[in-house]
């Protein structure tokens, strides 16, 4: 067994175990922590596949942004998780049944996993043979050329997500004082300061 294999099994086992812990641990904060653990191990698997760019993106985007946001949400929201789990036992037999079904399918798949002989020649954009090209550069070369349509569509999807978040959560309340930067910047000395000559012995 080579070193790569050893690392593969370490990463893969930890990934599976921590994913299981995500859905089984009672404290939701632990769940998020295990999720982060799972992301790190998945990133490790990507590195073994020589896909450093994907590994870094996984860590930066999923751990750095998504999981931390999850953590905030879980800590800030007052969710009664005991109540959420109340129907758990009722639906568990059915869930287990479907789970077994899916696992059986996966088992079949594992047994029958024979790729067609010349499948590699169908790959639309194979990894460049040239060692000098890093995989970040290789992705960059096709992402903005051959796959520009998908790139732009993904952008539109993000736009819809943004519009949706604003529509569903933004409330305009009446009578709330808001910062008006233009007004602040446009304010002049004369508007704010008044020179008054005060005679002695008298008030204003």
């Amino acid at each position: 067994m080579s070193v790569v294999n050893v690392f593969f099994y370490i990463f893969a086992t930890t990934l599976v175990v921590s994913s299981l812990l995500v859905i089984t641990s009672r404290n939701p904060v632990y769940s998020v922590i295990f999720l982060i653990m799972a992301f790190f191990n998945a990133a490790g698997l990507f590195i073994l596949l020589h896909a450093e760019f994907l590994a870094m993106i996984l860590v930066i985007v999923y751990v750095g942004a998504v999981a931390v946001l999850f953590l905030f949400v879980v800590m800030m929201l007052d969710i009664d998780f005991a109540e959420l789990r109340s129907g758990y036992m009722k639906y568990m037999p059915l869930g287990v049944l479907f789970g077994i079904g899916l696992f059986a399918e996966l088992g079949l798949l594992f047994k029958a996993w024979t790729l067609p002989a010349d499948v590699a020649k169908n790959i639309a954009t194979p990894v460049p043979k040239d060692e000098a090209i890093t995989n970040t550069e290789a992705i960059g070369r096709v992402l903005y050329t051959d796959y520009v349509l998908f790139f732009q569509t993904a952008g539109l999807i993000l736009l819809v997500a943004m519009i949706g978040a604003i529509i569903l959560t933004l409330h305009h309340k009446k009578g709330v004082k808001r910062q008006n930067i233009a007004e602040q910047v446009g304010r002049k000395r004369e508007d704010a300061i008044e020179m008054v000559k005060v005679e002695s012995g008298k008030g204003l």
Partner: protein
Amino acid sequence: MYSDIFSILPEIILAIGAMLLLMIGVFKKDGESSVVGILSLGLIIITGMFVYMQPSEPQVAFNDSFTIDAFARFLKILVLLGSFVVIYMSNEYIQEARLRYFEFPILILLATVGMMLMISASDMMGLYLGLELQSLSLYVLASFHRRSIKSSEAGLKYFVLGALSSGMLLYGISLVYGMTGSTHYSVIATVLKAGDVNIGLIIGLVFIMAAMAFKISAAPFHMWTPDVYEGAPTPVTAFFAGAPKVAAMALLMRLIFEAFPHITNHWRQILVFMSLVSMVLGAFAAIGQTNIKRLVAYSSIANMGAILVGLVAGTQFGISSVLIYLTIYLITTLGLFACILAMKREGEMVEDISQLAGLSKNNLLMASLMGIFFLSLAGIPPFAGFWAKFYVFSAVIDTARGDAAGVAHPGLYWFAAIGIVSTVVGAFYYLRMVKIMFFDEAVIDTLDPMHGKLQFIAVLAGIFTIFFIFFPDPLISSAQIAAASFFR
């Protein structure tokens, strides 16, 4: 590159137009949303003209991932029609329900961009991205009435189940990609033509089909439909019932006829099951409904089952019958929703079926139009809906006699027979609606008179439904031209 941009010009115009309208909406003060609505109607018309001007001979763009042909043109015009009518009808509702957000037409426009991308997608990645663009807009639209608990519930339910179905879709796509080495439909078809089919690919196909069934709300993945239809604001329900179904059906058709044409027997089994379950469930579950939007939801499940019958046929005739059915279904549904939007008593929307009792004495026009739409959905001649069902069932009988290769499929006779029987069962609740409107005693106070715009749409749809029998040729011939795109 220049020709690529030319191929996708309608989508670019619609997307950029939607973003411009977003800017207009943001910078226009005091929430005057109708300007954005009117401009978006103009934008859809312009886009429709550009779609109409596209060549009908097939062209591929963007590295073979985007196809324009007669099929795409036909369905894109259908989808644009659905979006246009919904935006046109919804303005008054939005004003009255105090939902004066200018984003409503913009989200419909962006969903339409997604649907047009779905119709033209000839690559798995394009399929997924188009579907997500459409679905994400629909999730937001479902919960648009954010002060209403039901609307929020509808949005959340749709979102959670939609995310699950996206997961299944991606899993299926990854299996197909693993087994064929490509995400392009044409390459997948070539691999499947040459080699034998292994189980990994079949499991991938099943997962993809399950996700598609969710999007077209075919049983057994229909559970979200009644709740979402009921909870969402009525114009949004009108939108859900029309254009997205057309787009998802187009996506399914292009997928099975371009990527999997050589394993027809494998996907036919799945479609036969989905179609049968949908027709039977749609017919029986609708009987007990008291809310008209839930009733329409079950009716749409049954209709999707009937549309799948045409796909089961798997022939050119089958595809053209599906296109005819989709057109008739879309127009009938839009007309029906124009009537449902007019169900108001003193400005409040009513959704209970019993409220329609004796409608014919107060508002004969609305009662007759609704009656025509229900009879058409039931498939009673001479209305358009009958011909829709007639074509899909004759297509499947044709295949049962002998498919393109001359092989007979005797099992499909049974399939067609059960389908027709369930249509007869379904006719019960449509006829009950007609009975309630025409023969029951009127409730004390009458419904408000129908708004002019809604009446206009309903009358147009009614004219189409009645007179289709005399002038079927334009629709049939353009459907045949569109269907020929897959058989060259």
